């Protein structure tokens, strides 16, 4: 197994068990060997992706995903202060909780995306009308929507309809429990993609950034 993979697995294990001294040790080791961007790309993102996939398969718990993402967000903030140029030139993107009051999923995706070097606006919790107005005002290209309850998931339709009415091609990515329990729901409500975990959020945002730049 390549060194980078070994380091990734070790970091994943340390994150899952919240072994902070070990996390710091592995982080220092990586920073000593690689440039900040490489540490993010080759170590932190793969570790978070592995943890996200393990959650989707039921092998790790949400509490571990949340604490891991929070720790990684701190590590990346140390590597990449907001003024570093690598954060510039990304698509205009935001994340929101639609309708309901369950904020944890959004918080995790936000942390994972920021830990992966993405700039993303945090809209907090909003109703559909407010979310549409804010997305249009910010001229978004990507809107990620997190929900926990089925009625909230169904409100994504209203957001999509409002964007279409105004002929604004904003990509909508959705995530949350209703979409996990009904794998056809994201298409039904007019989303462009569904994420089963925070790692899918990274893939989604990267794919759309690639499509726009090409």
């Amino acid at each position, binding site marked *: 197994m390549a060194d980078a993979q070994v380091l990734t697995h070790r970091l994943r294990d340390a994150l899952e068990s919240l072994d902070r001294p070990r996390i710091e040790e592995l982080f220092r080791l990586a920073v000593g060997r690689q440039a900040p961007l490489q540490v993010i790309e080759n170590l932190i993102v793969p570790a978070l992706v592995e943890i996200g996939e393990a959650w989707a398969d039921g092998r790790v718990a949400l*509490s571990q995903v949340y604490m891991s993402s929070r720790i990684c967000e701190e590590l990346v903030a140390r590597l990449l202060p907001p003024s570093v140029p690598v954060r510039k030139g990304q698509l205009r993107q935001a994340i929101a909780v639609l309708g309901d009051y369950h904020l944890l999923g959004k918080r995790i995706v936000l942390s994972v995306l920021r830990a992966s070097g993405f700039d993303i606006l945090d809209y907090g919790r909003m109703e559909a009308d407010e979310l549409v107005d804010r997305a249009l005002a910010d001229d978004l290209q990507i809107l990620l929507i997190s929900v926990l309850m089925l*009625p909230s998931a169904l409100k994504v339709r209203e957001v999509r309809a409002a964007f279409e009415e105004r002929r604004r091609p904003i990509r909508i990515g959705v995530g949350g429990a209703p979409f996990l*329990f009904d794998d056809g729901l994201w298409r039904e409500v007019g989303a462009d993609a569904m994420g089963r975990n925070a790692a899918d959020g990274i893939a989604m945002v990267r794919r759309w950034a690639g499509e726009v730049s090409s």
Partner: protein
Amino acid sequence: MTPQQRVQAAMAHRQPDRVPVFLLATMHGAKELGLGIREYFSRAEHVIEGQLRLQAKYRGDCVSASFYSALEAEAFGCETMFIEDGPPNCAGPVLRRDEDIDRLRPPRVIETPGLLRVLEAIRGLKERLGGRLPILGSAIAPFSLPVMQMGFARYIELIYEQPRRLARLMAVNRRFCVAWANAQLAAGATAVGYADPVSSTTIVPRDLYLRTGHRVATSTLARIKGPTAYHLASGRGLPIARDIAATGAVAVGVSALDDLAAWKAAVGDRVTLVGNLNGVAMRRWTAADAEGEVKRAIAAAGRGGGFILADSHGEVPWQVPDEVLLAIRAAVERWGRYPLDWTGG
């Protein structure tokens, strides 16, 4: 057999005449009465009448006296936000700072109007039904209530980082949970659902559960003076199936994400399994889908009793139409008659 006898037989791990079915449509009663959800839950008589009409329509084997989860957070001072097409939400944390836990006191059931409405509904249902149908109450586990009391993210941080404050919060919540569950039993509830989604392995790993939620559950359930059903509210639980069976609960709700047959193999006749129809997907089921899902669940866990067919969350979504619930009920009638020879067991 009456529904009560059917459920009792199943829970004693004997074969009743057919598989019992719980269609836990807590909000659908509002549709029956032509009321909005907020208005429906504002009076006990609405819920009594709603549950009786639903039972007459679906012919389920219980009635539910549950209103909505945020009611228990209301008792601690949280504000409830109602929506027109789903369960009310807790609008924000009442424990805004971690230090607030140090001063927290358990609210008294008799001083909380919302809880008193539930007790009134239980008494009314008991009066109308006698002992013919089980009446289900519900209480949120001390380990899960903090999601509403302080917000999910802060609560996870508390679990990992502040064990002393966690212990204090659990002590307060346990006193409230025990008092609330016992009040429902005293009012006439047959059993109380112990809703503990945070203990699911979807939310916390097993080793953490054994140090936290499991201990809380064991000590709480021991103080509740009647049967309890442990519910993970759609969260996965198979890795902790035997642990849950050891808490003292007599039944457990199984997630649609878990394998019912594997659960049955894991717990044997120690607890009755309740589940595991997918409530979210149910919204779009055809009659054939409903029949297929009912057959799958019965084939997985029905043999020998110890099984009650239900949705996997403990609450059927508002969006699930009558046609689907009636199709489920018809499929139970067709495929749920013991001895279930068609399952090949």
